[in-house]
């Protein structure tokens, strides 16, 4: 083997190794890669993975790529991701967790065809992305909070803070949705947005973060005149 060929094969081997390494390192994760866990379950929440059928979910259950979560009527599930990002799955919703590599890094996707979700996503690293997807749309999130709803081919995004890029897969159009706006992406390929009302923004904040912590202090007095404080902490 000549020196030139040796160098050529050497570079080739090196390039192949680098490719394998980069695929491994940047998101060619195993199908069962751990993504999040369920931190709260209210009423009827179930989950399934690729090997099992739907089963009741419990607080502390770990969610991996391919796992699905769905909620029943008047139910809620809170999912917490490795980076402290939070997704609140509202009633009668279903979501599928996936991860994939897009050549630049890892993309965590939550796929839903119906349901409503509050999200509080931490700022993602340069090689990471977070997406809500539906058959109609893709919302790429870098780090903000808001709500995402989808159903019957119509997706809605309400954004109290930050910026989200919303893509309509039918028309391949996309827009940047700024803070304070509500955006609509429809199965007919239309894509639009307008300033959200205060009520819409307040509802989005409530769903995204669980509400603002508040405290109610009630003075209780018994028959002897003894007074005690009953403090109720809640979110609104």
């Amino acid at each position, binding site marked *: 083997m000549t020196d030139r060929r040796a160098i050529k094969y050497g570079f080739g081997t090196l390039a192949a190794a680098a490719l394998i390494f980069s695929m491994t390192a940047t998101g060619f994760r195993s199908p069962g*890669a*751990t993504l*999040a*866990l369920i*931190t*709260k379950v209210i009423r009827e929440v179930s989950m399934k993975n690729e090997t099992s059928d739907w089963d009741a979910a419990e*607080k*502390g259950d*770990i969610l*991996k790529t391919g796992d699905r979560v769905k909620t029943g009527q008047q139910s809620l599930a809170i999912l*917490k991701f*490795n*980076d*402290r990002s939070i997704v609140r799955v509202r009633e009668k919703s279903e979501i599928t967790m996936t991860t994939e590599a897009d050549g630049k890094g890892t993309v965590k996707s939550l796929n839903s065809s119906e349901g409503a979700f509050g999200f509080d996503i931490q700022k993602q690293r340069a090689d990471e992305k977070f997406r809500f997807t539906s058959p109609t749309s893709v919302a790429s999130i870098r780090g903000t909070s808001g709500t995402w709803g989808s159903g019957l081919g119509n997706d809605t995004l309400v954004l109290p803070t930050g910026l989200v890029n919303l893509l309509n897969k039918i028309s391949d159009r996309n827009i940047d949705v700024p803070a304070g706006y509500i955006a609509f992406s429809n199965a007919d390929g239309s894509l639009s947005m307008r300033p959200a009302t205060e009520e819409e923004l307040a509802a989005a904040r409530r769903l995204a973060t669980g509400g603002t912590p508040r405290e109610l202090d009630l003075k209780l007095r018994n028959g002897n005149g003894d007074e005690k404080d009953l403090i109720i*902490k809640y979110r609104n």
Partner: protein
Amino acid sequence: MKKPDGLTRRTRSLLALLILPALFTVPAPAQFSDQVLRVEVGEYAPGRPLLLTIEFTNLNGIRAVNAAYRLFGSGTWTMREMQIIGNSALYGIPADELRPAVLEYWFSFSRTDGGADSTYPSMNPETQPLTTDLGPAVPESRALVVLSPDPGEHLNRDDVLISFSLARPDSSVDAGRTQIFLDGDDLSKHMVASDGLFVLRPDNAGAAPDGGSHTIRVIFYDTSGAVVSEKSWDFFVRGPRLDAPAGYAGYAGYDKAHEWTGRGNLRLETRNETVSNLVTPYNRATLDARATDGRFEFTGHLHLTSEEKDTRQPQHRFFLGAESPWVKLGYGDTYPVMPDMIISGKRVRGFSGALSAGFFDFEVVAGDIIRNVQGDTVRTFPMDSLAALQAADSTAAYGPYDTSAVPDIWAKFSHGTFDRSLLILRPSFKFGNSVFGITALHSKDDVASVTYAGAPEENAVAGADLTLSFDRKNIELKGQAGFSLYNGNIRGGTISDAEIDSIFSDSTYESFSRDDLRDARDIFSRFITVNENLVPLGKKNLSTLSWEGTIAVNYQPNNFIFTFLRHGASYRSFGQPFYRRDVEGFSVNDRVRLANNRFQLTAGIERLEDNTAGTKAATTTYTTVSGGASWLSRTDVPNITVGVLSMTNANPLAPSSLYSVDDNTLRFMAQLSRQVVLGARHFASVGFSASRRDDNSGRNLDSRNTSVSLSVVTDYDSPLRTTASAMFFSTKIDMSGAPVQDLAYTILFFGGEYRLMENRLVLKAAASPTLGDIKRTLLDAGARYHFTKTLSLEGKLDLYVNDAADTDVIWSMVLRADV
């Protein structure tokens, strides 16, 4: 989850020294001990006391054991009396006195015969102390992301789920070894780990937390089992504690609190020592018991020993205590810890109580700290020889022995010891993390308790202390002040006006007047016997006033402490016999933590002066300057700590003066340690210390000390642990007008512990030859067998093969039962 099988406790054993008394023909700073068997130091963990244990072959001739310690860089030793249990003495150094990187310590032993204290190490312990590594602290993990509960979060009991993740892949962390503790309980085996995400459901682990504050601690290890980093955080569970006080009944979970649970253990020991052909048997029994229903608690401790004799201080120990959420009551031997200027761990036999009422606390301790021991008859003699004997020994006690004889027979008595009572009252007020307290102490000898004794004494101390904490204790201000009254002889009672006039008929009293004494008597006789032996008798220099203050600021990367103090020359508290008197000055220490706490630099300066009362020939200045660096490695490089210290003591007197002080001690130390896995897990450490003292005064007491130590503790996969160590000590003392003393010896130690029969049987054996100027070999063998989980029998045999004397033999059997 696989748990690391690394060392859970680092123990350093130092074997006994046997040094010939003939080596010490000049007044060395301290003498020797041939009774120390081993010294153990607990593992340092920030926020927890550090336990010092010293085990003796026997305690013959030892009345009390004291531990002296200081952080490397400090010039002042803190001296504390240790608690003696069996043949061991223990003392837990309070957590707030500890911080990285090196603790220096030594021990002194008070003799029952009143002779000079012996020490361990035997020669120059202050310039060549023992040392133990206090860090640097394990760095806080930056890779850990807390998922649940958030730090400081308040949540309901049912919502408690503990979870965290490793946000970034950290190749140095072996996730499978990760440990998690909830309120100190290791729940690692109940934790689920998946791709860097960790989940623990406490209720599944049978550890559902009750209402109140809780702490989670996570420790990460590398693939070799060495600690890489850790992180702790607190959360709060709403609702009452399961041990909630009365009035909270009816809340969920409270019913469990009503169940009474109890624990107890009994330890019976028989021991036989043959030392220097003198056979001494010991029999001891210790019973501890505790019962609680979550609100109320009863405790009991009883220790009986054949060493109890009315010719020495009490050796039996007992305590009965009852405790509720707001009051504690106890009777027996107790060791109160209050402002250390007044009392800190001194044994008191009597009543103790504490009341906690919200922001107000009140503590009281009343009992005896010394019991009376009658003096012995030394010799008898005819009364007409009394004058000659008194002239020969004026310090002894003399009294009639047989008045029926002609002439009367008198006797010379050794001094006995008075009963000494003590009363302490301490109200204190808490405001968050801040505390203000007032402490009053009164202690007095019972003159009637002993027939022949020296001068009975009395002491009263009043003090105040204040601790202010800000910004989650990152800024702390502490201060304490005390004023003492001490009477060195109360036999005659409080002085009368006529006696005052008589005293002041002599015009040599210049520092105070008869009116001063009358005023002092009228004021202070309500608290203490007032006579000419009272200290102070005047206001000049406030010789019994002491105060000290500390400002501590802890903001990354600095940990800064500034202390200023003034200890009066005549300040005295019977509750704190080791308080260093007659110094004033300051100390400054700073510790800088870099590279995520892995690299720490320390520097300090302390400057103290004596002669606070202005009564000495000259003022001596004590200056200590120190610097050090520590590296906690995560690679193959060992953990390293190096330090250098210079202590200079000087006064302006000419070297020829008897009171001249002019010396400098320069000390260098280095410690290296590393855990390695080579077939088995090894913890290896190497230590080196060298010091030289140059004395430029007329005494010219120069010294050179060198010590080198090497030890390897190995844990094998099989239930075997071995220890191999070598320690070399060399001391040279060169003093004017005396021959140079050289002492060099090496102690080797080889030991092993093997567990078999599913840990029911534990076998131990060790051999430890001492070579050089001291020659002795220790052979040690023992076995412990568990008949059940709660019943065990242990036998032990120690042989001390002496080079120039018969072999000493010590054997013991211990039966232990737990309930």
